[in-house]
C-alpha cells in the first residue's frame, strides 16, 4: 500500500503520470497548470521517469505532438488550463474522433477577457462536446487516482478514447494535501501494458484523419457517439478494479448525506468539499439538505443521476461557468434535460457562482439553498441567478 504524504496536488498529478509509465509528454507552460509539467520535467531530468519530454511552442502544438506520439502507440500525457485548452480546441476533436487515447489533466481556469488566471469551469464547459471522456476531481486524492484510472480506461480496447481529468486551478493545483501515493508495482499491475491496435507503423501502413465526404462522415460521427456512450460500463469496471486494488472506490456521482433529503445541492469539482461543510451546518440546524457531486461529466451518467435525485423535491445546481444568453449554467441545463422526461421530477434552480476565482463560502451555499427554496415556492421569471455579484 502506498504511503500517505503531504504533497502539492500538481506534483502529485505529475507523479501519478510517472507511476503510470508515460512514454511521451508534450506541454506548454500556462498558469495554473505549470507545476504539473514542471515537475514532470524534473522527473525526466533526474532519470526517475524514462520518457520523452517535448516543451513545444504553444498548446496547439502540444496537443498535436501528443497525437503524433499516441498514434505510434506511445503512452502520452499532457496538461493545460484555460486559454491553453481553448487553443487546443480543434485538435481535441481529432484526438477523440481518431480514437487516440491522450490523457490530459486540466487545471480549470477562467477565460479571457478580462484576463484572469484564477479558477472556474468555463474552460471545462467549452470542451464539453469534444468527445473526450471527462472526469472532474474534487480533491488531490481523486486527481491522482483518476489520472491512473484514465490510462486504464482510455487505453482499453473497448474504449480507445482520450480522457481529461479536471482539477480546479489554484484550489487544487496549488495546495498541499494529504495524498496516498500508490506504489509503482501496484500501478503496474493495475494498468495493462498499452497495446494500440492500429499504430502508425511503416511495416503496416495506415492513414488517419483522411477526408470523409457526406457519404461517410455521419456514420463516423455516430460510431464515435456510440463508442463514447458505450464506454460507461468499462469506466465503471475500471473504477471497481481500482477500488478492489487500492481500497478507494469511485463512481460517476458522489453522495453526501443525500439519502432521502428533500433539497439537494449539486456541484462539480472542489467546491463540493465546502458544500459538504454547508450541508453539515444546515443539517445541524434541522434543514433537510444533502449533496450530490458529479464526477463523470462525459459520458453523462443519466441513469445514476436520475436515481440519485429521485426522492428530492428541489435541486440547487451550482455552476462555475456561464452559457451566455442560454438556459442557465451548462451543468444545470444538463440536469434539467436529464429530468424532463421523468414523471416525477424535482424543481431545479440554477445558480452561477465562483467565477474567476471568487470564493464560494459555506455561507454562500447556505444562501443559495435558501434562495433556491424561496424560488421553488414563489417562482421566478429568470432562468438562473448569478450569485454574489455586485450590481
Amino acid at each position: 500500500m502506498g504511503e500517505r504524504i503531504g504533497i502539492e496536488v500538481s506534483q502529485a498529478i505529475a507523479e501519478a503520470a510517472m507511476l503510470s509509465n508515460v512514454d511521451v509528454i508534450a506541454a506548454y507552460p500556462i498558469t495554473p497548470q505549470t507545476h504539473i509539467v514542471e515537475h514532470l520535467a524534473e522527473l525526466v531530468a533526474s532519470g526517475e521517469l524514462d520518457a520523452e519530454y517535448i516543451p513545444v511552442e504553444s498548446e496547439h502544438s502540444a496537443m498535436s505532438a501528443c497525437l503524433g506520439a499516441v498514434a505510434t502507440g506511445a503512452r502520452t500525457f499532457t496538461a493545460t488550463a484555460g486559454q491553453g485548452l481553448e487553443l487546443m480546441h480543434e485538435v481535441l476533436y481529432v484526438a477523440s474522433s481518431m480514437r487516440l487515447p491522450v490523457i490530459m489533466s486540466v487545471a480549470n481556469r477562467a477565460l479571457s477577457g478580462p484576463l484572469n488566471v484564477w479558477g472556474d469551469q468555463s474552460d471545462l464547459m467549452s470542451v464539453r462536446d469534444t468527445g473526450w471522456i471527462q472526469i472532474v476531481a474534487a480533491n488531490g486524492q481523486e486527481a491522482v487516482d483518476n489520472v491512473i484510472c484514465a490510462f486504464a480506461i482510455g487505453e482499453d480496447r473497448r474504449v480507445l478514447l482520450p480522457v481529461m481529468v479536471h482539477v480546479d486551478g489554484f484550489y487544487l493545483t496549488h495546495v498541499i494535501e494529504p495524498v496516498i501515493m500508490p506504489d509503482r508495482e501496484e500501478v503496474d499491475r493495475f494498468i495493462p501494458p498499452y497495446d494500440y491496435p492500429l499504430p502508425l507503423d511503416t511495416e503496416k501502413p495506415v492513414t488517419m484523419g483522411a477526408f470523409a465526404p457526406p457519404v461517410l462522415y455521419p456514420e463516423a460521427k455516430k460510431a464515435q457517439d456510440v463508442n463514447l456512450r458505450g464506454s460507461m460500463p468499462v469506466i465503471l469496471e475500471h473504477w471497481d478494479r481500482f477500488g478492489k486494488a487500492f481500497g478507494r472506490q469511485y463512481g460517476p456521482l458522489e453522495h453526501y448525506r443525500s439519502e432521502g433529503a428533500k433539497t439537494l445541492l449539486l456541484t462539480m469539482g472542489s467546491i463540493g468539499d465546502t458544500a459538504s461543510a454547508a450541508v453539515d451546518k444546515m443539517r445541524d440546524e434541522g434543514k433537510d439538505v444533502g449533496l450530490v457531486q458529479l464526477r463523470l461529466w462525459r459520458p453523462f451518467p443519466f441513469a445514476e443521476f436520475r436515481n440519485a435525485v429521485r426522492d428530492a423535491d428541489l435541486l440547487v445546481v451550482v455552476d462555475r461557468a456561464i452559457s451566455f444568453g442560454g438556459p442557465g449554467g451548462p451543468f444545470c441545463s444538463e440536469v434539467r434535460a436529464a429530468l424532463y422526461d421523468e414523471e416525477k421530477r424535482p424543481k431545479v434552480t440554477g445558480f452561477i457562482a465562483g467565477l474567476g476565482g471568487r470564493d464560494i463560502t459555506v455561507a454562500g451555499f447556505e444562501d443559495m439553498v435558501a434562495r433556491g427554496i424561496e424560488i421553488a415556492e414563489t417562482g421566478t421569471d429568470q432562468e438562473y441567478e448569478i450569485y454574489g455579484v455586485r450590481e
Partner: protein
Amino acid sequence: MSELAVNSEKTRENHPLGEYLRTDRFPHIWCSGCGLGIVLSAFIRSLLNCGLALDKVAVVSGIGCTGRAAGYLKLDSFHTTHGRAIPFATGLKLANPELEVIVFSGDGDLAAIGGNHLIHAGRRNIDMTVLCVNNFTYGMTGGQFGPTTPSAARSTTSRAGNVENPFNMVGLAAASGAIYVARWTTAQVRQLERSTTEALQRKGFSFVEIISPCPTYYGRMNRQPTGLDQMRYYRANTVVKHFASPHEVGVALGGQIVTGKFIDTERPYLPHPQEGHDGA
C-alpha cells in the same frame, strides 16, 4: 483615501513620467531587479521625443510579464491573448492607419506561441513597431525554457541545461523582412531610447529587441542571481556593431552580446500610402 490610493497618487506626482502611467494599477507585478521598468520608461521618453499626439498612439501587448505593460500605460492599449499581439495590431493599423501602433511584448509571447505572426507581419511589412523584451525565459509562468533560451542554460524545465538551439530574434526579424532591426540591453538606456525613437519614425515593420534581466528565474538559475549581476554582465560583455549582419549576432550563454542598429532600410509597406492611408 486608502493607503494604496495615496501611494498611487504619490507615484503619479513624483515619477517623472507619472502622468503617462496608470498608477492606480500600482504596485506593479514586476520583480525587484527586473528590466521592464527601464524599458517602459525608455519607451515613454521615445514616444515624447517623436512628438506624437498621444491620442493617436495604441499599444498592444500579449501575455507574460512584459504584456502587463499595456495595463500600466495611460494610453489606448489592448492586452490580447497569448501570442496574438501582432495580428491584433495588424487589424488595428489597417482599419485605422492614423494610429501609431506599437506591440510591446516579450520573447515568449512573440517568438514561441506568436512566432508565426511575427514572421508574417515582417513579410507584409506592416507599419508597426515591435518592442521585444527578451529575458530568455517564460518569467510569468515560473522560468521554463523557451525559444530564446540559450543552449545549455538552466531553467525549471531544463534542469540539466537546455538541449535546444535558440532563435536569434534580430536574425529572425531581418529574415522575415523588417525594415528596421536593432538590439540593445537595458544597460544601454540612451541608445535604446534613441533607437526606439527611430523605430517609431520609420514606415514599415520595425523591430527592436531589448535584452533584459529576469533575476527571479533566468538569472538565479544561471549564476546571475540579482538584476545588478545581470546588468554587470551586460556592461562587461556588450559591444556595439552597427550594421553587423543580424544573422551572425546570436547570444550564447555567458557570451558576448552584439548590440546596435543592424538594419535601417525602406521598402513598400502596408497600409499602402497611395490609397490615402499614409499614417504620417
